[in-house]
Structure formats: structure tokens, C-alpha cells
């Protein structure tokens, strides 16, 4: 852990708790990441950091490169340039299952569940990482009581919100250190989104660092410690949610000086 990297401001890499103690290395950090689909470069040098115990919101309009950033962070897409660090260690090029095993857990956009498996079977998938199914089930149903009565129901037949709860519960029972959430609100009613983000806030209070990628800023800014706005494949603005209020409209709608 080189001091120079720890001390560098990488967009949103400041400590969330504002203490005077020396900042620890961010748990997840992207440094100058470039990524491409075939010959088309989508990320043009993304700098992003998720400090310990912080909730970082990554915002931006459709096509800004948010989900691609998640793919790079989750090991699903190797960067063409730049580095990915976990807890100060270079893990660039690590596979998604390696990152998941050490504790960087990603919930992809569009309900990350196995639709043709039951709720119980979906949770059973997590036993590959941690523990016995009955223990994991107890933990999951304690946090999400709605899932208990539906344990033998196919995940694909659950409502959108319940599927996201299942995806969250499956992620949480693996004891993640960093949680990456991609478009949690996709296709869900506002009231369900609000409930989900209340759960995310509870999870954050337990000390899990969270990177939330979200198109609808209002939903996530209430729980975020830091936020970054992506525009055309780069982090254009970064700061606290209050600091970014004025930048949001220009990022989404464009402005005169852009």
C-alpha cells in the first residue's frame, strides 16, 4: 500500500467518516481504467474509489458507461488499460469468481437470480462460498421475511422487488466486504425502490462498502456518502451528494457549456 496512492484523490476516494486518522486504502479502486467492446472504447480512463464502510453512488445517463464500469470492477470485462485494486492490492485481470470468493460481490442489473430455480435453490448457490444451507436460509429470511413463505417458489415467478431481495440476500449470506449493485431500481415501482434502498442503508450500517450504480439519482443519493457522475465514459464530477446537486441536471440533460 503505497502512501502516494492512498493519499491521491481519485474522484470519490475520500474517507466517508471524515475522521483525522490516516486514510486506509479504498476497498475497491479503479485507476485510469479504459475498457472496450471490440474496437469501440467505452471507458476512457475512469478513476473511482470506494472507501471502507462508505456508500458510493455512480450516476449517469443511459450509455454513460456505468454498467461497463461495474463489469470491470466485477472482473467480467478485462480493462484495456488502467488498474483495479482491492484493499490496496492490484487484482487487474482477476476473474469474477475469484473476486466474488474474496468478497467483492456483484449484483448485476436486471434481477441477478436464477429464474428457473426456487428461492431455496438460489440461496443454495451461496453455500459454495459459505456454510450450510439451513444457516444461510435462516439469515436470509430473517433479513427478508417476505422470502420465507416463498422458499419453494421459482425465483422467476417472484415480483421484481422480491427478486432483487433474493439477489441481495444471496449476496449478503456470502459475507461480502464490498457490494456492487447495478441498477437496483430497474423496472421497479418507486415504493419498492425506496424499500430496497432502506435495506441497502441497513447493510451499509453493518460496515459493508457499497458501490451503487444507478440511473435514477434521487433514489440513491439519500443513502450515499459520496457520489460520482459519469458522462461519456469518464467520471465528470465527484463529491458529496450535496455538492453534486447542481451538476446532476447538466449531466443528465446537457448544458450550455458542454
Amino acid at each position, binding site marked *: 500500500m503505497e502512501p502516494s496512492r492512498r493519499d491521491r484523490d481519485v474522484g470519490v476516494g475520500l474517507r466517508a467518516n471524515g475522521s483525522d486518522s490516516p486514510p486506509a486504502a479504498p476497498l475497491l479502486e479503479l485507476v485510469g481504467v479504459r475498457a472496450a467492446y471490440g474496437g469501440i472504447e467505452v471507458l476512457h480512463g475512469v478513476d473511482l474509489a470506494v472507501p471502507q464502510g462508505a456508500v458510493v453512488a455512480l450516476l449517469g445517463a443511459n450509455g454513460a458507461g456505468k454498467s461497463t464500469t461495474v463489469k470491470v470492477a466485477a472482473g467480467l470485462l478485462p480493462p484495456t488499460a488502467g488498474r483495479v485494486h*482491492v484493499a490496496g*492490492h492490484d*487484482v487487474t485481470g*482477476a476473474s469474477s469468481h475469484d473476486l466474488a470468493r*474474496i468478497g467483492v460481490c456483484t449484483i448485476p442489473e436486471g434481477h441477478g437470480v436464477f429464474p428457473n430455480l426456487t428461492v431455496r*435453490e438460489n440461496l443454495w448457490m451461496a453455500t459454495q462460498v459459505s456454510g450450510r444451507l439451513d444457516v444461510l436460509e435462516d439469515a436470509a429470511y430473517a433479513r427478508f421475511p417476505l422470502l420465507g413463505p416463498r422458499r419453494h417458489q421459482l425465483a422467476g415467478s417472484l415480483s421484481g422487488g422480491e427478486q432483487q431481495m433474493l439477489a441481495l440476500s444471496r449476496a449478503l449470506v456470502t459475507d461480502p*466486504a464490498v457490494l456492487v449493485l447495478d441498477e437496483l431500481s430497474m423496472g421497479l415501482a418507486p415504493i419498492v425502490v425506496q424499500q430496497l434502498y432502506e435495506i441497502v442503508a441497513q447493510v451499509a450500517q*453493518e460496515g*459493508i462498502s457499497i458501490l451503487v450504480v444507478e440511473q435514477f439519482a434521487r433514489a440513491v443519493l439519500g443513502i450515499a456518502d459520496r457520489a460520482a457522475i459519469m458522462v461519456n465514459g469518464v467520471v465528470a464530477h465527484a463529491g458529496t451528494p450535496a455538492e453534486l446537486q447542481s451538476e446532476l441536471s447538466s449531466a443528465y440533460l446537457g448544458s450550455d457549456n458542454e
Partner: protein
Amino acid sequence: MSERIARLEREAANLKVSTSAKRDGILQAVGAVAMVAGVVIAFVAYQLSLDKSDDRDIQSLVILAVSMLGLSVTGAAVFLRYSLARFLRFWLLRQLYEGQAHLDRLVGALGQPNSSDEHEVAEPEASR
């Protein structure tokens, strides 16, 4: 949570970044090429052997054709191994789960005292 962070740091430090995905892709391509090239060369060698009158030439070409068929079979095996590996892993996982679920059902049924009692009571009545 600090214990969890310490574990993450330890595991991230020990993480050996694998290039197996790239290697799997290369081996899959090599397998496909060997599979196709083996068949093509075997066919060409066999066709060439038909025009030869010297037994030694014919034998050489037939040996080459058979060797190429062997290469083709090996290539097919390599291609299948590296193209289906992920699917087969999931299939194996499913088999394990179903096996465990079946075992749980059996153990659950054997562990229910009521069902065996009912069976013992019902049997003499049925025999009357």
C-alpha cells in the same frame, strides 16, 4: 468488520490473477482447428493414395490419413472440453443438488415416527 477487511486484504494479496480464461479460449481454438484440419488432411491424403501405384507411397499416405483422423478426434475432445466446461460445471452442480435433495427427502421420511407407526397399525387390519 475490521476482521473482514483484514481477511479481504489477506485474500486480495494472495490472489493469483489467473489467465485461464485466455488459455481456455486458445485451447478451444486449437482444438477446433485440429478437428477440422485433421479431417481435411486425412481426406486429402487418402485421395492422393488412390493415385499411387507404389505400395510404400500408399502405406505412407494411409498412415498419414489415420494419424490425422487421430488428431481430429483429439482436437474434438479438446474443443468440447474447453467449450463445454462451464456448462458441465453447472450441470454437475445441479446433479449434486438433486442428489442432496433426494437424500434429504429420504432421511426426512425415515425420521418421521408417525408414518412408521401408522404402517405397523394398518398392516394387521389389512391382513384380516
